[in-house]
């Protein structure tokens, strides 16, 4: 086994027990691998000495103040305004927002549905105009409408020619 491979796979958790055993055996008998591991540990020790001298925070209170200022500055304005307007705990504030959002959605739904109803009325009026035009074009009157009062005509207009023939074979214009 090559030293490079042994050192690479030494800490691997995805190798088989047998392979692990082989690697351990190789390292135990290889002076190069042992010296590599030893020097790595020695360097670890050297670095750990530096741990005793951690970089100290210079002017700790100033840094704390800076952190606070930075936080205040970075917090989005609208968020701060909302929290000022609603001095509640975030959980309650969330419920209020959710309620408000539901109300807005409900209003939007109502507005849209009213608009759709208006559109339907408009379409119905247009349909009536179309019926009049159709009857004139085919020299028909509402009286000739067998089913009376334009109700049939409206249904007839809304159907295609072939559909109307199938559905009302006796109606001949």
């Amino acid at each position, binding site marked *: 086994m090559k030293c490079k491979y042994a*050192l*690479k796979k*030494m*800490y*691997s*958790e995805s190798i088989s027990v047998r392979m692990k055993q082989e690697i351990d055996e190789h390292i135990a008998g290889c002076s190069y691998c042992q010296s*590599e*591991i030893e*020097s*790595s540990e020695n*360097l*670890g020790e*050297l*670095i*750990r*000495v*530096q*741990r*005793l*001298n*951690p*970089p*100290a*925070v*210079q002017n*700790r209170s100033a*840094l*704390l103040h*800076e*952190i*606070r200022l*930075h*936080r205040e500055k*970075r*917090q989005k304005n609208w968020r701060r305004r909302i*929290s000022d307007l609603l001095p509640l*705990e*975030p*959980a309650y504030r969330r419920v209020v927002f959710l309620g408000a959002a539901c109300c807005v959605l409900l209003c939007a739904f109502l507005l849209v549905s009213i608009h759709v109803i208006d559109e339907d009325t408009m379409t119905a009026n247009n349909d009536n105009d179309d019926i009049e035009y159709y009857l004139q074009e085919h020299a028909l009157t509402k009286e000739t409408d067998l089913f009376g009062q334009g109700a049939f005509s409206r249904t007839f207009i809304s159907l295609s020619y072939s559909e109307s023939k199938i559905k009302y074979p006796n109606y001949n214009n």
Partner: protein
Amino acid sequence: MTVDERLLIEKAKNGDRNAFDRLTELYIEKAYSIAFRYTGNEGDARDIVQEVFYKVYINLHRYNPKFPFSAWFFRILVNSSINYAKRQRRKRFIFQDGNPKSDVNPVDVTVDTENNPEKKYINKEVYQLLQRGLELLPEKQRSAIILFDFEGFSQQEVAVILKCPQGSVMSRLFYGRRKLRKFLEKYL
């Protein structure tokens, strides 16, 4: 995590700024130390610490209390430090001579408790070299060395912070130290 800390986190989550300030006080030293190891520069370390505490404040509601707060906090710190260091390196590369050397002066920033001036000097020399060597390591190996060797976290803790198996931590430590040793051999 102590009961007190858990209480502070809970209060901070509910928008108590004073509780968050106290939490900041608990972690500021360690955060600064790690940020400094990544950047090798006091000003940059301060910037990172400010940004990290802001990020933690904004995302505190995302923290899952089932896991240790420190691991969550230090993961944010490590990621932010790596990103910051990358940005700075890119800036230095573009606007200066392209040499990614640190402008750190460890004499000003380390607190040395030793009274022996010779030992003090050697420590500073070694520290300076280590800091320069660290900058040349790949991110993953650097993170492992900073957290395990410099900051004294256990391998298990490092694995949680870096979100990788413990074996990977050991392997990163081994290869990182090997590269660092090769770098130091040129000077020592």
